[in-house]
């Protein structure tokens, strides 16, 4: 008798589940991810923290008048690097007239981001629609559309520099050999040159991500639309766009963040010091080049905070689902439901309690 009881009550080795949706592979997953996370910690994590610490120091730069030598070492200056960024306006003349250099760069960055991302999205979606169709030579068309994305940005910057040269192809094609446009000068044509080069390079990226989204749309939906007599435009706006929205929003978010920190295209193609195309990331580079690492780190952090703000707004307002983890979404939805349930129960029991009069208090 005792043996069977023991057998019956012997605990079976069931892996304890963290929640209703876990599949018990957490430990293995952690082990497999550990090497990557360790590398990221050393290559990215520690330098980022060191950079943040660096932003609170400043190199002592004083020149000794007797020996002509520069004082070495750096001293802690608290938030002075950050306040200096905003406190010393220097007036420059860009495309918008004369204004503070930082605000000029801020407007440039925002303008490039908005215009480039809008153009990229339109072109990218068009490319995706073409790539999704089945036709002869589709593989070749797909490969050739993706070539601009495959070329490193600095290489394409130098390449476009040759094209936009005063004696280059751009002026020849537009028939402007006698009164050439100075694309590489410091005017609104330089801005146009940057936008053209950036859209050329990155529209394929949005095309690629949108293509992935398009391929998840089942064919029956399109068939049903055709049966219902939907026109091509109605199909596009009522079926394709809504179903591809998750992928498209993520692609647009990535491109926005990328364009906000654009550096190599204006620097490589137009050159430094051109205020019509100066972006925020240039300041960090210039400070670093002058070996003022504290100030450079401060500029980087300011840019980083700006980008974090934009990303936060994107996720909150447009609902960009960056992680896309079904399990996580289901867990959060379940937690929400339980919370609502508890709140309702608490409200119900509270109202019930107030109706009960204490029996012992009577008389």
């Amino acid at each position, binding site marked *: 008798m005792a043996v069977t009881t023991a057998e019956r009550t012997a605990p079976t080795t069931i892996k304890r589940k963290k929640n209703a949706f876990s599949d018990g592979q957490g430990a293995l997953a952690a082990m497999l991810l550990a090497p990557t996370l360790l590398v990221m910690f050393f290559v990215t994590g520690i330098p980022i923290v*060191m950079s943040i610490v660096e932003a609170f120091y400043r190199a002592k730069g004083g020149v000794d008048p007797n020996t002509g030598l520069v004082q070495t070492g750096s001293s802690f200056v608290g938030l002075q690097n950050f306040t200096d960024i905003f406190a010393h306006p220097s007036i*420059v*003349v860009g495309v918008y007239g004369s204004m503070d250099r930082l605000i000029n760069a801020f407007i440039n960055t925002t303008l490039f981001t908005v215009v480039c991302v809008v153009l990229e999205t339109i072109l990218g979606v068009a490319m995706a629609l073409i790539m999704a169709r089945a036709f002869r030579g589709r593989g070749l068309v797909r490969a050739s559309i993706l070539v601009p994305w495959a070329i490193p940005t600095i290489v394409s910057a130098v390449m476009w520099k040759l094209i936009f040269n005063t004696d280059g192809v751009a002026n020849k094609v537009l028939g402007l050999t006698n009164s050439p446009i100075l694309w590489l000068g410091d005017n609104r044509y330089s801005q146009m040159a940057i936008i053209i080069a950036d859209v050329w390079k990155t529209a394929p990226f949005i095309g690629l991500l949108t293509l992935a989204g398009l391929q998840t749309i089942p064919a029956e939906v399109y068939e049903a639309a055709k049966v219902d007599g939907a026109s091509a435009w109605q199909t596009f706006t009522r079926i394709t766009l809504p179903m591809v929205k998750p992928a498209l929003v993520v692609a647009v978010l990535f491109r926005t963040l990328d364009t906000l920190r654009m550096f190599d295209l204006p620097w490589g193609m137009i050159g430094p010091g051109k205020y019509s195309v100066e972006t925020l990331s240039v300041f960090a580079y210039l400070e670093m080049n002058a070996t003022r690492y504290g100030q450079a780190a401060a500029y980087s952090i300011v840019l980083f905070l700006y980008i974090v703000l934009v990303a936060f707004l994107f996720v909150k307002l447009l609902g960009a689902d960056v992680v896309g983890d079904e399990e996580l979404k289901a867990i959060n939805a379940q937690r929400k439901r339980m919370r609502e349930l508890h709140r309702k129960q608490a409200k119900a029991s509270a109202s019930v309690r107030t109706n009960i009069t204490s029996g012992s208090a009577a008389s």
Partner: protein
Amino acid sequence: MASKNKLARLTLSVLSATAILATAACGSSSGTAGSTTSASTDASWSKTGPINYVQGKDTSGNVQKVIDKWNALHPDQKVTLIELSDNADQQRASMIQNAQSKGASNYDVLSVDVVWTAEFAANGYISALPSNLDTSGYLKAAVDSGTYFNKLYAFPSTSDGALLYYRKDLLDAAGLKPPTTWADMKADCKTIQASTPGIDCYGGQFQKYEGLTCNIAEMVNSAGGQFLDDKGAPTVNTDAAVAGVQWAVDAFKDGTIPKAALTWQEEPSRQAFQDGKLVFLRNWPYVYSLANKTDGSSKVAGKFAVAPIPGLNGPGVSTLGGHNMGISTYSQNKGTALAFIQWWNSPENQKANTIATSNAPTWTALYTDTDLTSQFQYLPVLKASIDKAQARPKAVKYGDVTLAIQDAAYNALNGTTTAKAAMDDLQTKLTALVK
């Protein structure tokens, strides 16, 4: 249960964050007292052994051959060539990186551009050379360009001065001699443009980079102005300096200088001259052999000559270019480094290098050497140019100084501000920088 897990997770994250911060804090430098590189490194001037010689990309192909000669003579003190980018800014960044990592890249002998001497010397990237070195046979301007606070930090190696390339065939046809003043140059252009329509007058390098500083420095100095006075204080808004800049602004406005020149660096301007689009070109001596090539790349081969650059009231003043050789403070075998520098820049080796690379030497006697002057006809003109040349402002923060000069010049040239306003603004900026 859940709260216990939460507490454990929170503690772990706080501990790891503290650990990261602690590691980071160890790495960052604390406020040390202002100590500078002491003279205790002087003891190593006698040490010999293998060294590394660092310069930008060797476009001549000659450097390794000369190094091989040294290695054959001194097998126990081998020299290895380390080639950096051909972009001057990247060379500077690489040398600074070596210094800030306390010599981790093992650079010993550095090829220092003349404008970096003050910055490298003041920050202790290169050591002051022993004071008993004999530099009397070298060009005074070159020795001066390697000196900081009356100590020689970089040994004179190569020099550079600007030349005025002009279309000899067109000037001869019109019966004109090369101009010595800007007004003469404009008048000559008018005559030539009447018979050769479509050709532009004068070209230089006016893109926003170091070349613009050189060109504007020449305009300012050729009009009698200075960037810094004898005591090192800025004097850029004098009438003479503004007059120099004003001439360039007017030249752009009336078409003497084509608008496209605002985007030209050395190579595009050379291309324009070689394609026959310019009467006069201001550029460095390297253009001479390239423009004379008879392989079809140059339409002006044999049709041009060189002259000193013109100025406001007489011959102009060129900017001094060139490279000197310095020794990294963190070099181990400074004895070999010093011997190598002196051997490389000895008269015989400088003559051989000039013949092989057509770089301007710094040994004064070579400019009157008959072998060289017969092969390089521009040498006497170049010597005159270098003798009168003025260095760009010597400042520890040269990077900021040159950016400020480029800002002022570019704004004036493309009409955003007037020349006077730009130079006044520059005066304010330089006063703050050159304190």
